[in-house]
């Protein structure tokens, strides 16, 4: 009888233990949030406006063989001017950017990279990614993420980190994550310890029912939050980012963790960007997004213009990106310069 009681207690204890909430590790939050204060709101929209203007004059990518419809206007995809602009922006900030060209089937992807070398673990990289190709003006999709990445790169250049940081502007995401897929497949992602990928982070709405649910997942009615998607491998990243954003009032965040590695049928909706193959290869990665077409009615339309964005929302999300990158890279107290 006594043995049975002890056994029952052990079972109950085990169940309670397995149900206990895991608190995120908050070490480094203060310093990360401090770095985010360096983000300048006025720096963001000019990148998006410049990109939109450049795209107007750019030659569209050859879309031979790709379908063409309202949701996928393949004949309006541009990238060449964005490649040049992003590369030059990195040079201006003092980086030494490089382009990796990956060709297949007469379609070349031009991925642009810039790096900050880590001091203690230089071979471990935190990847900050966003795609540079876009339909029409592509203000939200994906000028917003490019602007956030460039501003984060400007801020973070002034600090030193334990791990290295790699900023990546991936090409041809709209044709099915072509640039990032080739990059991972070619073996360049072997040194990535964690990745933050952004796809559309500049559109918000205060209106009721402005937010649709994503694949049956109930989201708040108002589309005024940043959605951070992760999987089992990046669960801690999502937890830390949401806690950091909440604790330091960086941006309103909703975190979602796909079941398992996120590659099941229902989870595949969360794989619709450049983090997709990272998830598949078990590299911890999160997606930052305003939920794209589940909120923004200008998705893949000529109306995706700078005027349709919410600059304050983009500013807050850029701060969240900067803080999270600083946190995962291991921000060191003293400034580099």
């Amino acid at each position, binding site marked *: 009888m006594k043995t049975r009681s002890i056994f029952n207690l052990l079972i109950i204890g085990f169940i309670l233990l397995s149900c206990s909430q895991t608190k995120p590790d908050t070490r480094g939050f203060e310093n990360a949030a401090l770095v985010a204060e360096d983000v300048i709101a006025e720096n963001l929209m000019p990148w998006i406006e410049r990109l939109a203007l450049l795209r107007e004059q750019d030659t569209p990518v050859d879309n031979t063989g790709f379908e063409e419809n309202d949701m996928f206007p393949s004949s309006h995809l541009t990238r060449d001017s964005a490649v040049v602009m992003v590369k030059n922006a990195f040079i201006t900030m003092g980086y030494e950017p490089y382009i990796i060209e990956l060709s297949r089937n007469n379609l070349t992807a031009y991925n642009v990279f810039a790096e900050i070398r880590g001091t203690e673990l230089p071979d471990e990289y935190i990847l900050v990614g966003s795609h540079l190709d876009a339909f029409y003006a592509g203000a939200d999709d994906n000028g917003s993420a490019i602007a956030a990445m460039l501003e984060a790169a400007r801020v973070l250049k002034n600090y030193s980190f334990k791990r290295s940081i790699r900023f990546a502007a991936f090409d041809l995401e709209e044709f099915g*994550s072509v640039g990032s897929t080739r990059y991972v497949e070619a073996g360049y992602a072997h040194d990535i310890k964690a990745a933050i990928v952004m796809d559309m982070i500049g559109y918000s709405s205060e209106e009721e029912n402005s937010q649709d649910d994503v694949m049956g997942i109930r989201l708040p009615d108002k589309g005024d939050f940043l959605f951070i998607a992760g999987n089992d491998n990046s669960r801690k990243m999502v937890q830390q980012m949401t806690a950091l954003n909440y604790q330091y009032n960086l941006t309103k965040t909703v975190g979602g963790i796909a079941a*398992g590695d996120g590659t*099941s049928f229902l989870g595949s909706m969360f794989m619709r960007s450049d983090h997709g193959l990272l998830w598949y290869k078990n590299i911890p990665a999160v997606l930052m997004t305003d939920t794209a077409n589940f909120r923004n009615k200008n998705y893949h339309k000529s109306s995706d213009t700078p005027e349709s964005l919410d600059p304050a929302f983009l500013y807050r999300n850029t701060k969240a990106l900067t803080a999270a990158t600083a946190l995962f890279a291991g921000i060191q107290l003293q400034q580099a310069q």
Partner: protein
Amino acid sequence: MKNATFAFMKLVLFLCLSVSLLHSVENDRITIQTGYSALLYQHIFSFQTSSAFEISASKMIYQNVSGQTGVRIGLDPVLPEIYIRAGVKHEIKRWLPEAGLEIGYSKRSRFKNEKLLLSEIQNTMDKDIHPMYLSFYANPCSFKISKSISMRACEIQIGSHFERMGRTVRIQANLFSLGVSL
């Protein structure tokens, strides 16, 4: 995923136990079966249906535990799949319900991604699907026609490939098969 796997295992255990409590099958002969099945494969962004002819041999191993081995030859494209299975079977008059697990080696997890959009990431993901799979099968519509002849219809099989189980879903319906006990 762990919860789903746990629930799946509980279901298998429940079915096997419940069936094993019932009447044993009085047939120690080898049964040769042939039939036609339809297979639906899903893998992240990819989706594929195919059909196959199959031939198998089964025998009662112990009381009402049956063993079976067979081969399926897929149609369009013609790709093979071999399998072994162990299940619990019982006999109530002419009814021969069966449930169990199947392990197989399959070449049929090939996807035709006809659209260019997403094709590169699909192909990259699809090419490293493990050839071994595990599935649960249930055979509620199996009947003895005569002492030597039996028939099955609508056998349902749900499974996934080894190595990160759950990334692929294979749902197979054995539409019809005929068995002859030798």
